């Protein structure tokens, strides 16, 4: 009895979010023509695959009670490095590998600084954000097109689904990343240590868990995910640009937190993050379908929809004390 209520309570925010998503979709379908088309849902995935990957990385960090502000800049850096290297004739797969190494290393570096010098993650990753964005500008202030065959193929080959629908390769990659993340968080020691650190870093240390390694690892994972997100964004836009993904760290954080993960760490699920991304996506989609909002009303309505989502989610999943 107690288990049931306990676990139900833990999953309630997620269920509430899911229910709200369905409501939003039904609302859109009745309100706007062509919204009911299942492809619209798939398009939300297509348009947010890179954000999803970035947000998954962010989930790891937030679960330990940290934060990573560098993700947007790392995404931009990755697109730019990809574009630049591909243009220089480096084979695409090597480029992608290199980009992932760069992202992972950046994350690793930030994690090490955070852990060994006991600095607040906010400030270290903010410096990381400056660094990555700064590197972007030094590489190129112009945006660079990607014409490489592999990238183009990844960008433009749809993955056909039954019913004439399709998704992009990026979506498939994002879903694989998702599956791996779920597995790591729930079935490996690393994942459980992540939760333990979020619960109490001091306790985790006294329990003899590998806190340093894990703490550094989550930033490396986040860096890796951001650079992979960057690669997906490069697929998506076929360009590298220093101004890509400005403010994406906020989107990622918002997705994670809307998905029910607590910013102080220790509680939350990657699946929640997926829902968080979908919430942001569906809000955007509703607005694009509406097509009557002025620029400022767009922002106000985004805010209002966010408000409705968050408050409803809160009220629905509120513990009855």
């Amino acid at each position: 009895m107690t288990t049931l209520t306990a676990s139900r309570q833990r999953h309630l925010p997620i269920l509430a979010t899911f229910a709200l998503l369905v409501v939003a979709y039904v609302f859109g379908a009745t309100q706007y023509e062509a919204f009911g088309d299942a492809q619209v849902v798939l398009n939300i995935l297509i348009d947010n695959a890179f954000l999803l990957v970035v947000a998954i990385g962010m989930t790891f960090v937030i679960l330990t009670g940290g934060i990573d502000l560098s993700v947007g800049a790392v995404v931009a850096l990755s697109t730019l490095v990809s574009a630049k290297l591909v243009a220089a004739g480096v084979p695409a797969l090597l480029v992608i590998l290199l980009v992932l190494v760069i992202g992972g290393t950046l994350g690793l570096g930030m994690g090490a600084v955070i852990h060994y010098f006991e600095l607040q993650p906010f400030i270290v990753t903010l410096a990381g954000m400056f660094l990555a964005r700064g590197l972007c500008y030094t590489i190129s202030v112009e945006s660079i097109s990607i014409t490489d065959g592999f990238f183009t193929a990844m960008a433009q080959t749809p993955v056909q689904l039954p019913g004439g629908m399709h998704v992009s390769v990026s979506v498939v990659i994002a879903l694989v990343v998702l599956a791996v993340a779920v597995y790591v968080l729930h079935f490996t020691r690393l994942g459980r240590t992540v939760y333990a650190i979020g619960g109490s870093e001091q306790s985790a240390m006294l329990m003899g868990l590998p806190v340093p390694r894990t703490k550094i690892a989550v930033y490396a994972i986040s860096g890796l995910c951001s650079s992979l997100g960057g690669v997906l964004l490069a697929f998506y836009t076929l360009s590298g640009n220093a101004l890509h993904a400005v403010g994406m760290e906020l989107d990622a954080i918002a997705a994670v937190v809307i998905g029910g993960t607590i910013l102080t760490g220790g509680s939350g699920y990657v699946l929640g993050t997926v829902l968080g991304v979908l919430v942001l996506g569906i809000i955007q989609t509703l607005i694009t379908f509406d097509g009557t909002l002025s620029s400022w009303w767009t922002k106000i309505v985004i805010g209002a929809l966010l408000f409705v989502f968050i408050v409803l989610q809160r009220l629905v999943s509120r513990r009855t004390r």
Partner: protein
Amino acid sequence: MTKHRLFWPVVALVLLLLGNFLFSPSFFSIELREGHLYGSLIDILRFGAPLILVALGMTLVIATGGIDLSVGSVVAISAAIACLQISQLGDQNSIGGIAGAVGIALGLSLALGAANGVLVAVLNIQPIVATLILMVAGRGLAQLITDGQIITINSQPYQAIGGGFVLTLPVSILIAVAVFLLSSLLVRRSALGMLLEAVGGNPEASRLAGVRSRRLIWLAYVVCGLFAGIAGLMISSNVSSADGNNAGLWIELDAILAVVIGGTALTGGRFSFTGTVIGALLIQTLSTTVYTLGIPPETTLLFKAVVVMAVCLVQSPAFRRKVITRRRKPKSASPVQQDEKVEVSA
């Protein structure tokens, strides 16, 4: 002396200023021009004033364990509404009209802060998303007020708030100093400071000790909104115009950074207004340094990254322990040879 928690931030600030001085010897010179003080240092204070205000409010919010992302939007809204009001005045120089406009703007800022506070303190929504709502919608609201245009006004008294001088001193600095002193006084002379720190340090323990944590948290957001509103007036008055899209853009990041550099932890609890002011000045000095040194825009961020990192590392006791002063090996004390006591058989 080095024990004091503001020692290292001050050192960093002084170093940065000295760096400027090396590069541009006139950096410390302050002269009297057209009846007011003029010089790079004055600029830092003048342009730093809005950031100081926003960061002071942010300090309170962070002390409660929260965060307020919406300050930039509040800045924009306050600026927009004040300028709109003034632009509609028959006489843009009428003190009464301006006071009204300022009053409306600050009232609105208070209300917005209060709304944030309700979301956080009453509905228990995580501060970062609660304030994200206003961060997004607020920009739209500001642009709605200005109709997406930049509202330009021509009002001498209003312009004084951000750009004027009293007794050779810039008004914006005076306002910032006044707000700083008042809030320090309020927080440390009343029990507000201690109770906030208790709430931020351990919310459940505070509740059980009978602290009205909800009200305090709410109050922190209200004050934060108010200070952001004042900053908005300053920013708009400084350029005699309101730009709904750009006023206060990303100021929340700078403000949080200032708070953190000032030694207040994002996890809440202990806070220091003085530290925040030093942090804000450091950030403003950094921008000025970029201009003074003529660092090209493409490398500005790299430069900032290096400086921010350096400042934080210098401040980090762990860094100083591990890197600067290599840990001396402890002298092994001579083992006290004691008589073997009776062994216990298992």
